[in-house]
């Protein structure tokens, strides 16, 4: 330790130490010479003998200096200084190499940041590792199963059929008594009452996202309030005072700070709630996909549901077949996930068996499974992880191209520095020392690329956030460059630096000195190493071409998918339609006034100058996915049937052609004969060739007490239009009037057919709504066109990103090809000169070079076409309207690649054809 500081001190005064050492050695020489002289030698001889006795003074100085400081660092500083000088000397080379690395590393960091944020980051709560998420799996849940009613998500699972995190409330109560394995069990859910709420604060109405949480939710997660107190079990029971906890961001936006939010009264869906506390700023709930604004005690859903016909009812808490509440738990210290699973699965099994009412239900009971909960719920993962993995693979390939490019450039540089290195070796530089120095240069280059990569990544993350988050759910992605990501980047750039620095460095230090020195600068490049270098660099280029093709094939598959999606026949006119959503029920309107209220609004919207048609529907056509049992009298209801409650003139407004009969009109209101318009597909399935007009349809009220709710007369047949998404087949659809009984209108999407830009009408709409009822915010304002773009958002993102990446790959590979061909041409200057002197046409010379390019490209394609055919199966699920081995996409990719290769090869080829034979020969 002492010696460390002494060395550190000496580092600062080394100039003085050098002088002292020189003086010390000089003294030694003098002393020795004097002594020898005294022994009888002549003065000259004595001095000479003293020198001989002392030996190599420089060497002594060298090894003494090594004692003072650290040779390693000293040499490193030397190497770095030398490397920097060399880099500045070769600006073009450095810029090219660093840039391709920066792009490669940056793209990887950006994508990795998202992967990290989505898949790897833990919830910001204490001891996240002990959290578990409770799920169940079953073969199928559709059809007859114990899941008779649900609110939440059930996902298709490749192994088991279905997987889900929603449970009946009695199951939660059962699992709460699992003290042996869990220290905490808590629940939360986002039923329709709270998903989007109308929150009125100081007279100002706004929309907010809510989360219902059980009384022990915050205690279970061990979250401390930023202000006030969080929800406790006392708040979570029927009849308790209505309280709310708001998020930190929400408190700042609406109350100007956490402190001033506590104690305030707010209206949620027109009901008074008292804000009792604020969550800490970093807390976003348990689902990274959606940060709730407001947390409510679970039992308040009875209050909130009362206003709604499909709303939550108190006896839903007792229903053993209604699946809606999600559960998380904390493992007791020392209990493993597997142990907890083993302890609880049989108990759940036993309980769920008692809820089955028939043998079919008993044959397919859900089985409890526990999942690690440290990273929260996997909503985002389900949505983004697959496209992100595809992108990660693509950028990984780009990095491979970039690295081989830099290796190629380093190879070329090593060849041109052969003379210098041979000289240095022959004057006594150690091979290891030179190897180290070359390695330092490439690592420095890699670090430069890494720094550039971080900058590029910062920009890339912003770009990706915009791109990925613009989707229909408008999720907030918290991707950022963190230390974890930076560490990975640094490691990546270092590893690549060492990897691509190694080959040229090894090669450079194994020179045959004599021949290398004899070689002239312009060089008869006939040495064995030369051809080895050319071969290696060609192998690298072939590899780059092969990898580029893979990326190009992916890009052209995604671009073709997108163009297939964009050219889908919609069945309605997407141009010049403004969409927006209103929820009068949450603002306090009730039946039957609510239907009338919506009707008045529709008339006022239709009267806006420039609006050609106005109507409303339960949801948009693309978003709609409503299934209530509908049947032709006498037949059982068909689950495939879909319906959409619409206002007068909806089909006309959307410009869906009516093939027979009429549209829903204003005369179809409550009290008049319920009517329906069916689409072509519905007519074909249910009536075959017969005329459906005048026939009847029954709409059933679902649930245990199933009864006919509406007996409707078919008044029209409309042509098929997209419903419930872009990619699905158009289902059989029944358009019903929104105000003719069950189901009563809730939130409604208005559609305005406009002349000119639809968004120009937004302010008029807002003004009309404000006048009608200021408590009701206008939400989800967008054009029909934008809604469709949102629906195919993932495909657009993939197509755009993969195109950018393909361009990047082509550029980097093109630079590599260009460099290699330029080098080849320069090497063959003499030969080409002779050919031209003997009468070769410039065109023949161009062809000679291009032929070589084509051979390289062909070699690359031979490798990658089969690889691409194999790999494209992995992206099958992202494709639409084509098979993974789409010949057109493949042809397109090959054509683009060949074009780019020829372009990159043409410049050196042209240069070759312009070689002046005289100069070339003199050159030799």
């Amino acid at each position, binding site marked *: 330790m002492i010696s460390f500081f002494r060395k550190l001190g000496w580092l600062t005064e080394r100039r003085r130490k050098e002088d*002292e050492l020189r003086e*010390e050695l000089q003294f030694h020489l003098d002393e020795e010479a004097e002594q020898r002289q005294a022994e009888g030698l002549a003065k000259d001889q004595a001095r000479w003998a003293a020198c001989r006795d002392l030996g190599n003074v420089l060497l002594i100085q060298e090894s003494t200096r090594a004692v003072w400081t650290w040779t390693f660092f000293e040499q490193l500083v030397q190497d770095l200084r030398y490397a920097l000088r060399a880099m500045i000397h070769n600006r073009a080379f450095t810029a090219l190499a660093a840039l391709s690395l920066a792009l490669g590393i940056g793209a990887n960091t950006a994508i990795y940041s998202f992967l990290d944020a989505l898949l790897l980051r833990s919830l910001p709560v204490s001891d996240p590792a002990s959290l578990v998420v409770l799920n169940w799996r079953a073969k199928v849940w559709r059809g007859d199963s114990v899941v008779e009613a649900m609110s939440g998500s059930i996902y298709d699972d490749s192994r088991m059929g279905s997987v889900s995190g929603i449970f009946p409330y009695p199951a939660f109560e059962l699992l709460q008594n699992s003290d042996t394995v869990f220290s905490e069990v808590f629940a939360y859910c986002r039923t329709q009452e709270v998903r989007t709420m109308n929150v009125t604060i100081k007279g100002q109405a706004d929309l907010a996202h809510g989360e219902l949480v059980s009384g022990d939710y915050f205690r279970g997660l061990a979250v401390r309030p930023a202000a006030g107190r969080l929800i406790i079990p006392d708040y979570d029971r029927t009849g308790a005072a209505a309280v709310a906890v708001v998020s930190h961001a929400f408190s700042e936006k609406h109350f100007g700070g956490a402190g001033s939010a506590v104690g305030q009264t707010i209206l949620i869906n027109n009901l008074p709630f008292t804000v009792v506390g604020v969550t800490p700023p970093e807390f976003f709930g348990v689902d990274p996909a959606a940060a709730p604004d407001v947390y409510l005690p679970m039992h308040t859903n009875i209050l909130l549901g009362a206003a709604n016909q499909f709303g939550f009812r108190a006896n839903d808490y007792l229903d053993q077949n209604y699946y809606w509440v999600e559960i998380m738990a904390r493992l007791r210290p020392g209990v493993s996930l597997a142990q907890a699973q083993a302890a609880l699965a049989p108990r759940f099994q036993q309980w769920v068996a008692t809820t089955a009412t028939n043998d079919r239900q008993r044959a397919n009971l859900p089985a409890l499974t526990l999942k690690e909960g440290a990273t929260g719920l996997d909503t985002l993962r389900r949505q983004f992880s697959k496209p992100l993995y595809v992108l990660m693979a693509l950028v990984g390939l780009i990095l491979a191209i970039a690295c081989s490019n830099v290796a190629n450039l380093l190879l070329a540089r090593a060849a041109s520095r052969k003379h210098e290195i041979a000289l240095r070796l022959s004057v006594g530089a150690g091979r290891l020392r030179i190897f180290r120095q070359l390695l330092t240069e490439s690592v420095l280059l890699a670090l430069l690329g890494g720094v550039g990569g971080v900058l590029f990544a910062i920009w890339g993350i912003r770009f990706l956030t915009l791109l990925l988050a613009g989707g229909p759910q408008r999720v907030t992605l918290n991707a950022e460059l963190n230390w974890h990501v930076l560490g990975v980047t640094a490691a990546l750039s270092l590893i690549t630096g060492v990897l691509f620095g190694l080959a040229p460095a090894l090669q450079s230090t194994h020179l045959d000195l004599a021949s290398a020195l004899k070689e002239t600068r312009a060089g008869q490049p006939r040495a064995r190493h030369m051809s080895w270098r050319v071969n290696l660099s060609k192998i690298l280029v072939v590899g780059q071409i092969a990898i580029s093709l893979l990326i190009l094939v992916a890009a052209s598959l995604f671009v073709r998918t997108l163009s297939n999606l964009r050219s889908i026949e919609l069945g309605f006119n997407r141009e010049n339609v403004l969409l927006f959503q209103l929820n009068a029920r949450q603002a306090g309107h009730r039946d039957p006034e609510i239907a009338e209220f919506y009707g008045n609004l529709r008339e006022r919207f239709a009267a806006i100058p420039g609006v050609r048609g106005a109507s409303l529907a339960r949801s948009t056509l693309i978003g709609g996915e409503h299934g209530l049992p509908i049947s032709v009298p006498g037949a059982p209801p068909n689950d495939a049937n879909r319906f959409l409650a619409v206002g007068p003139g909806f089909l006309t407004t959307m410009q869906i052609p009516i093939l027979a009969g009429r549209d829903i009109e204003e005369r179809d209101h409550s009290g008049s004969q319920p009517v329906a318009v069916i689409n072509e597909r519905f007519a074909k399935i249910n009536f075959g060739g017969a005329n459906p007009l005048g026939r009847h349809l029954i709409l059933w009220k679902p649930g245990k007490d199933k009864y006919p709710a509406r007996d409707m007369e078919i008044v029209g047949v409309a042509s098929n239009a997209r419903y419930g998404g872009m990619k699905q087949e158009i289902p059989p659809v029944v358009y019903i009037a929104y105000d003719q009984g069950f189901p009563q209108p809730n939130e409604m999407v208005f559609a305005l057919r406009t002349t000119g830009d639809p968004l120009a009408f937004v302010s008029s709409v807002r003004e009309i709504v404000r006048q009608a009822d200021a408590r009701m915010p206008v939400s989800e304002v967008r054009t029909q066109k934008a809604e469709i773009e949102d629906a195919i958002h993932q495909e657009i993102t993939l197509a755009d990103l993969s195109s950018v990446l393909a361009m990047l790959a082509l550029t980097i590979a093109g630079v590599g090809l260009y460099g290699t061909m330029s080098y080849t041409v320069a090497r063959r200057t003499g030969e080409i000169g002779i050919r031209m002197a003997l009468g070769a046409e410039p065109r023949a010379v161009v062809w000679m070079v291009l032929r070589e390019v084509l051979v390289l490209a062909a070699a690359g394609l031979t490798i990658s076409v089969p690889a691409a055919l194999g790999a494209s199966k992995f992206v099958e699920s992202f494709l639409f309207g084509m098979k993974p081995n789409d010949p057109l996409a493949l042809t397109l990719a090959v054509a683009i690649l060949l074009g780019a290769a020829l372009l990159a090869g043409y410049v050196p080829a042209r240069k070759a054809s312009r070689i002046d034979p005289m100069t070339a020969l003199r050159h030799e």
Partner: protein
Amino acid sequence: MSRQPPTRVELLQGTLDVLILRTLLRRPAHGHAIAKHIQRTSEDLLQVETGSLYPALHRLEAKGWIAASWELSDKGKRARYYRLTPRGRKQLATEQSKWQAFSRAIGLILNPMDEEAR
């Protein structure tokens, strides 16, 4: 890179340090005097290679076992004098006992005849 062939007895690795420390125990000395003293005391059996003497001196200084200062020599010239520090003295003691044990052990193995003869 090979050096000149060793003259007389080659020093064992690590022995130079202890010889230097022992030499400085008498009194402070400069590099040349140390080399000469070792040579003389060993009856010219040990030839200190100057190539390793100075790095060794600086290494011992870095370890804090000896300290250096510039003083005037007997002939009035500026010379770098080294002297033993308390830490160096302690180090010498341990090294010395180690060496004695070592040389005794080597002696026992190399000259077993003495014992058998007795």
